[in-house]
């Protein structure tokens, strides 16, 4: 009586195992569906599109294009210009955000109690919607009604109102200023968390040895803070590379396309010129470049950090 039962047990166990696996998968199902629809499928679709011509010319019928979208990219001066604008934007704004963030994180640490209150105030720009704040900046830099001109005229720095957003250099400076305003608090908050994680005894030990403030910074704060600095800067570089809202609202890429970043150019390619094949090639290059930068910085971080541990 027992024998046939055990004979049947193997497939039963297998079935039960499958049920258990299905149950296990159930936990991941909602997240999996969402990620598939918004990340996995779109990336594959973009890959496919980049090898096709899908535009007004082809009547939006997919025509195999081989590598011609990428070939076009190589000789596209507008692509190079947008790359240059993006690189200028990323390097200057991230550098400024880092310097400001670090300086302020060190200063807030000195303040102790009231530091928390200031940190809250500083958090505000980071949480506000960029697209809406960009309208505010547009107003500040307006040549007739802008506060920037008003202030500089009163201080006699300039003699006549300047149309800040109408000149390439000052327009880029305005975009960078607006981005620094918004994003340096993020660097600050990550670095403050880093500073707070440093054991107090390390400083006390240095104090006994007669270390100056510089010594404390150089031999205790900086080495401990390095991984935090890396994380904050990697975050910012990657986010700044994909900058869209600020440029789109503040200048629309102008004047003369001099502030058009790669995201904005891609957006126009998709939604204004309706060139979906070429747009896909553009965004893939952006993604590839970011992956390269991210990977380089990450290995750099690991190399610097791991051996010391």
């Amino acid at each position, binding site marked *: 009586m027992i024998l046939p039962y055990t004979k049947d047990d193997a497939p039963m166990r297998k079935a039960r195992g499958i049920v258990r696996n299905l149950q296990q998968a159930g936990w991941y199902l909602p997240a999996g569906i969402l990620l598939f629809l918004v990340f996995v*499928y*779109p990336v594959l679709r973009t890959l496919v599109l980049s090898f096709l011509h899908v535009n007004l010319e082809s009547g939006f019928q997919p025509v195999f294009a081989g590598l011609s979208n990428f070939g076009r990219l190589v000789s596209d001066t507008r692509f190079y210009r947008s790359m240059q604008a993006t690189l200028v934007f990323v390097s200057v704004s991230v550098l400024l955000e880092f310097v400001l963030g670090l300086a302020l994180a060190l200063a807030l640490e000195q303040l102790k109690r009231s530091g928390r209150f200031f940190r809250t105030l500083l958090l505000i720009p980071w*949480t506000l919607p960029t*697209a809406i704040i960009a309208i*505010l900046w547009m107003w500040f830099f307006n040549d007739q009604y802008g506060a920037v001109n008003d202030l500089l005229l009163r201080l006699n720095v300039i003699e006549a109102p300047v149309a800040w957003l109408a000149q390439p250099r000052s327009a880029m400076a305005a975009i960078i200023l607006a981005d620094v305003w918004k994003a340096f608090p993020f660097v600050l908050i990550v670095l403050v968390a880093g500073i707070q994680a440093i054991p107090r005894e390390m400083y006390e030990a240095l104090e006994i040895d007669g270390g100056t403030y510089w010594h404390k910074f150089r031999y205790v704060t900086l080495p401990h803070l390095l991984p935090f600095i890396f994380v904050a800067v990697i975050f910012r570089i990657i986010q700044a590379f*994909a900058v869209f809202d600020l440029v789109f609202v503040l200048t629309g890429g102008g004047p003369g396309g001099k502030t058009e970043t790669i*995201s904005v150019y891609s957006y126009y390619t998709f939604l204004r010129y309706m060139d979906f094949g070429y*747009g896909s090639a553009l965004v893939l290059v*952006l993604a590839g470049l970011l992956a390269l930068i*991210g990977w380089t910085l990450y290995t750099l971080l690991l190399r610097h950090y791991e051996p010391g541990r």
Partner: protein
Amino acid sequence: MICVWSLIPVVWCGLASLKSSEELARIPATLLPADFTLQHYIELFTRRPFAAYYINSLVVSSLSAFLCVAAAGLASYRLARSPKRFRSAVSSSLLVMAFFPPIVLLFPVYEIIRMFGLVNQPWGLILPYAALNLPFATWLLTGYMELIPYELEEAAAVDGLGPFAIFRRIVAPLAMPAMTSAFLLVFIFSWNEFMFALTFMNLESARTLTAGMATLSGAFSQEIPWGLLAAGVMASTIPLILAVFVFQRKIVAGLTAGGIKE
């Protein structure tokens, strides 16, 4: 000093939103409003579809934050209880997704949304927002769930609770602080998102605040109604400013946990 620099644009805007249009056009500009007026705010809600923007933003942000945290909660609980190899593999792919430039996803997601007939529907933004923030939320929650001791779950299992009941009655309440942080951050990110909102919502009545405000500012070629824009900026940012003050600790906790965990 720096705090002043951080706040001055907002304060300036708040003051400007209370000035009359004539005063705003005056040169040189005044600092404090000479004749205090609420006309811009009234105009915003009566003559512009600002109330619709507001409701859309609220609905989209809260539902996407809820959906995102729920999906992330389920996944991260299993993830926190799975073998380390699997966990770190998933974590690194989540990291890659979290850093993905949204412009890459925009067009294919638009195709999907259109296929499901969700253009100009709140769900057309809720689903993408929930998904876009999912990697970050899962990452945040997994770190926290790893800290919840197994013993509690074992005890509950002995008491005859099923896996889902254990999650709902034991793990989820314990993970509440992290879930609140995640909810707040996803809410803020969704409230602030612009590119998808601009592309997917082309009816005036379907727009969220960011897309609505940006098109409002671009809709005037000649005389830009600064007072109206200032009032709009204030009305759409005040809820966030309040949230920062009330939940500052939670927001910082979420940001730093997300930023520091490697």
